[in-house]
């Protein structure tokens, strides 16, 4: 008690020093509490985001993989993580490990679709109208196509004005000439003479130059969709339906769908609405101003889609809404797009009421069949047609591109796209072989042979399914089987198939596949790239990881196990970065505190030499003097550490009430939602107090040692 009394009174006696040191300890303790609370909350939310969306608690993949599995690697998928050859065995083995709830097969890759080429769609419609001899429809669509080609010609003309003609490549010159021809009166006057030749010209020469023929790249996970949906708790279908059990199909992530598939003007309207709702204003916010500018500058995105039937409707709507009698749609749209903080609400409603219904709002609609183009594991291009059943989201991660960039495809289509020979392909291949009389190639060289240079010695050309799909690259519409039937013939170099009725095969193949229901053994019995392991609640991940690794080894599965943190790549490591930043800040604060505590305590020791000497003279042992200094440090640490922890607790409580906004999509993912609500635990306070105490005691070591060196004689010296 006397030691504490001495300590308290000493602190009071040297209050300036106490305040400086205490202030640093206060700050350090507060930072520890706030930092740890944030980190633990982020850790939990990250775990929720990552485990609950795509990774599961653990991931397994080939032991002999060249690269490390990285689920959130971004769009570049250069990882060579090998294959899991027999997933059925893996599932059976690992689901028998205690604590394992489910093993979900996976394969992550990127693919591309052509999206949003309205000209393509309109040409398809025109072809259908011509085929069906629907003259009225043909007239309307023909006028629209002619208008679009005219606008395209104007744009290309403008582009050629901007460039020095001498720098223009022959290819570009030819393209401009083609488009001009397509927009000319002479071309359209002769259209009726041979509409299909004219259409072919437009499809092959003009449409590829279409204004909004975007190549949309996105990331997808091939998986057992049914089991994925029932095991990943954050998964939720938003639009459309889940892919029927056992069938092929594709689910867009809602965010990808909105960001990349939706009409750009509409998307910008949505983004403006969301940002205004967050409290930003058009008057001040640069992003909002930029979106407004883009909507005004790129009104062609709207006019391009309006035909002779829809344009008057939109014009009339705008005239009424804007109370403007101008007849030029461009003038009306320019005025409509000139939004401000006051009129946006009304304009937003008006856009969706009077304009959007006449636009192709999504370039791929739910129910469409789209052609995904990707690269096989050997690096060759491949395509797969797949029906889009709907969109989904990972709950509370709606706005994070980290999670929102992940789309889902059934495992069978994935295997096709990734170049694994599925039973379907084998079957179809056999049929084509039978029809063409082509011998099967060696399994090992199949793909290499298929895509080898024409000069190489090619044994056989086995990839009929790929050929069928390759015909259709770029077609994204709801009339796919018909489109397949109408598609151009196979690419050059595939002469062996010249006698095969590819269109009929493709159509049948497609129809067969979309309706086919695969049994669980078919889905499981094949190659996957990795698998997610979900654990029952309350199971210790580290223990489970060891058990799973042991099971892999015991059953010679040739797999390695990693936890969700490792599997998520940089994102999973992000927490360590925050830890490092926090540790760095704390190190600076505590190092400064240590230096100050040390210096001031050394000074105090020197000032108190007489007092210490006297205490020694009256019988205080060295250990007592040391204790005296440590108790002083302890009192300081506990007093200011507690105050700092309490303050830190208040800060955490404040943020818990208000939430910390995620300032970009990475943080939405890390926060498992748009805001983080940090929580504090008793452990954080204990850690803060321990850290502060250790730092203080450590910095008191030297002064305390110095004090123990004071001799009783030093109390007497002044007396001589």
């Amino acid at each position, binding site marked *: 008690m006397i030691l504490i*009394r001495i300590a308290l009174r*000493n602190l009071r006696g040297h209050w300036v020093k106490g305040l400086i040191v205490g202030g640093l300890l206060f700050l350090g303790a507060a930072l520890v509490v706030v930092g740890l609370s944030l980190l633990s909350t982020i850790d939990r939310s990250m775990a929720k985001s990552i485990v609950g969306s795509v990774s599961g608690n653990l991931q397994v993949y080939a032991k002999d993989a060249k690269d490390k599995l990285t689920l959130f690697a971004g769009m570049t998928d250069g990882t060579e993580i090998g294959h899991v050859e027999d997933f059925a065995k893996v599932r059976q083995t690992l689901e028998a490990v205690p604590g394992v709830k489910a093993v979900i097969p996976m394969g992550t890759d990127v693919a591309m679709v052509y999206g949003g080429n309205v000209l393509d769609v309109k040409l398809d419609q025109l072809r259908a109208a011509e085929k069906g001899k629907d003259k009225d429809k043909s007239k309307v669509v023909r006028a629209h196509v002619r208008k679009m080609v005219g606008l395209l010609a104007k744009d290309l003309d403008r582009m050629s004005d901007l460039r020095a003609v001498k720098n223009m490549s022959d290819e570009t010159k030819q393209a401009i000439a083609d488009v001009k021809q397509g927009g000319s009166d002479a071309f359209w006057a002769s259209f009726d003479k041979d509409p299909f030749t004219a259409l072919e010209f437009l499809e092959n020469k003009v449409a590829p130059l279409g204004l909004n023929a975007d190549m949309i790249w996105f990331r997808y996970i091939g998986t057992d969709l049914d089991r994925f949906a029932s095991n990943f708790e954050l998964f939720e279908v938003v639009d459309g339906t889940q892919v029927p059990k056992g069938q092929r199909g594709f689910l867009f992530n809602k965010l990808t769908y909105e960001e990349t598939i939706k009409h750009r003007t509409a998307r910008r309207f949505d983004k403006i609405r969301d940002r205004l709702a967050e409290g930003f204003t058009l008057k001040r916010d640069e992003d909002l101003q930029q979106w407004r500018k883009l909507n005004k500058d790129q009104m062609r995105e709207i006019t391009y889609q309006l035909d002779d039937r829809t344009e008057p409707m939109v014009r009339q709507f705008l005239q009424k809404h804007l109370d403007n009698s101008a007849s030029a749609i461009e003038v009306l749209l320019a005025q409509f797009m000139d939004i401000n903080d006051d009129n946006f609400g009304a304009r937003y409603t008006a856009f969706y009421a009077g304009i959007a219904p006449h636009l192709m709002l999504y370039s791929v609609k739910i129910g469409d069949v789209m052609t995904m183009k990707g690269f096989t594991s050997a690096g060759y291009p491949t395509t797969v047609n797949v029906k889009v059943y709907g969109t989904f989201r990972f709950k509370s991660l709606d706005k994070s591109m980290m999670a929102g960039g992940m789309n889902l495809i059934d495992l069978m289509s994935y295997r096709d796209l990734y170049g694994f020979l599925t039973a379907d392909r084998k079957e179809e291949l056999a049929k084509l072989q039978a029809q063409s009389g082509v011998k099967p190639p060696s399994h090992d060289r199949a793909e290499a042979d298929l895509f080898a240079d024409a000069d190489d010695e090619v044994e056989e050309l086995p990839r009929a399914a790929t050929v069928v799909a390759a015909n259709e690259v770029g077609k994204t519409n709801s009339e796919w089987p018909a489109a397949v039937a109408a598609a151009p013939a196979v690419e050059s170099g595939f002469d062996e198939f010249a006698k095969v009725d590819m269109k009929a095969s493709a159509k049948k193949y497609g129809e067969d596949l979309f309706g086919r229901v695969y049994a669980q053994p078919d889905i499981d019995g094949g190659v996957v790239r990795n698998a997610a392991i979900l654990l029952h609640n309350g199971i210790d991940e580290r223990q489970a990881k060891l058990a799973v690794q042991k099971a892999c080894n015991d059953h010679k599965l040739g797999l390695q196990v990693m936890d969700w943190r490792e599997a998520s790549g940089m994102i999973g490591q992000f927490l360590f970065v925050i830890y490092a930043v926090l540790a760095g800040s704390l190190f600076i604060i505590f190092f400064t505190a240590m230096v100050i505590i040390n210096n001031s305590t050394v000074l105090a020791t020197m000032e108190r030499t007489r007092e210490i000497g006297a205490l020694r003279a009256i*019988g205080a042992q060295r250990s007592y003097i040391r204790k005296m200094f440590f108790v002083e440090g302890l009192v300081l640490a506990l007093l200011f550490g507690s105050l700092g922890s309490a303050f830190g607790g208040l800060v955490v409580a404040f943020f818990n009430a208000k939430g910390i906004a995620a300032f970009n999509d990475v943080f939405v993912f890390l926060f498992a939602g748009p805001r983080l609500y940090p929580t504090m635990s008793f452990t954080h306070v204990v850690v803060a107090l321990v850290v502060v105490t250790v730092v203080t005691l450590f910095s008191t070591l030297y002064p305390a040692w110095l004090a123990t060196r004071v001799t*009783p004689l030093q109390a007497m010296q002044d*007396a001589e």
Partner: protein
Amino acid sequence: MTTAYAATETPIVKLVNVDKDYELGTVIVPALRDVSLSIAAGEFTVIAGPSGSGKTTLLNLIGCVDIATRGSVIIDGSDTKVLKDKQLTELRLRSLGFIFQSFNLVGVLDAFDNVEFPLLLQGKLSKADRRERVMVLLRQLGIEQYSHHRPGELSGGQRQRVAIARALVTEPRIVLADEPTANLDSKTGNSILDSMQELNARGTTFLFSTHDPRVVSRAGRVIRLVDGEIADHNATAEDVAQLAAAAHAA
């Protein structure tokens, strides 16, 4: 000369051929030379001498706060030269009481705490016993009402009395006092000396370093030091007065 002691023949302090040198850089300054001395338990002894004669050095050696360069210093039967720091500290705590010339009270503790401190170090008594013993002493020394005053709030005499109380509270066998009356007026000085004599009568050995005639006049024995040597083992008060006068005249 008044003798208020009943000294026994057993020496409680014994110095045999003690030298004490101080090193000042490369120069060795002898502070005590060939000092041999024996003080019996219960003596009331004064070490007198002019400034620089070695009084405090001698007191430090006897008080176990310094070690002789040569010779033996035996306190309460223990040769201080062979004792380790811990044992010397223990000896100081158990057998010695110090009254410093400049008090050396702990500034942040009040009078009561300062006096209680050695008892806490000893750890022998209960809180109630400690309190009682401290308060008895403070009462005896007439500073009971200042028990909760800190040294900074006390006069020189009051502080001196706190220092004396602290030295006496453990009931040590030997009390060493360095100029205990230097800061006291005549009335207070006499009152304190009276108290000390009372304790001495009960067996406590007192050893003073002083040239205050008031103390000298009460001493049972006066040891006179001159230039680090004992000039007289049993000087008279007159010798001391002469010495003081000579020092004053110089």
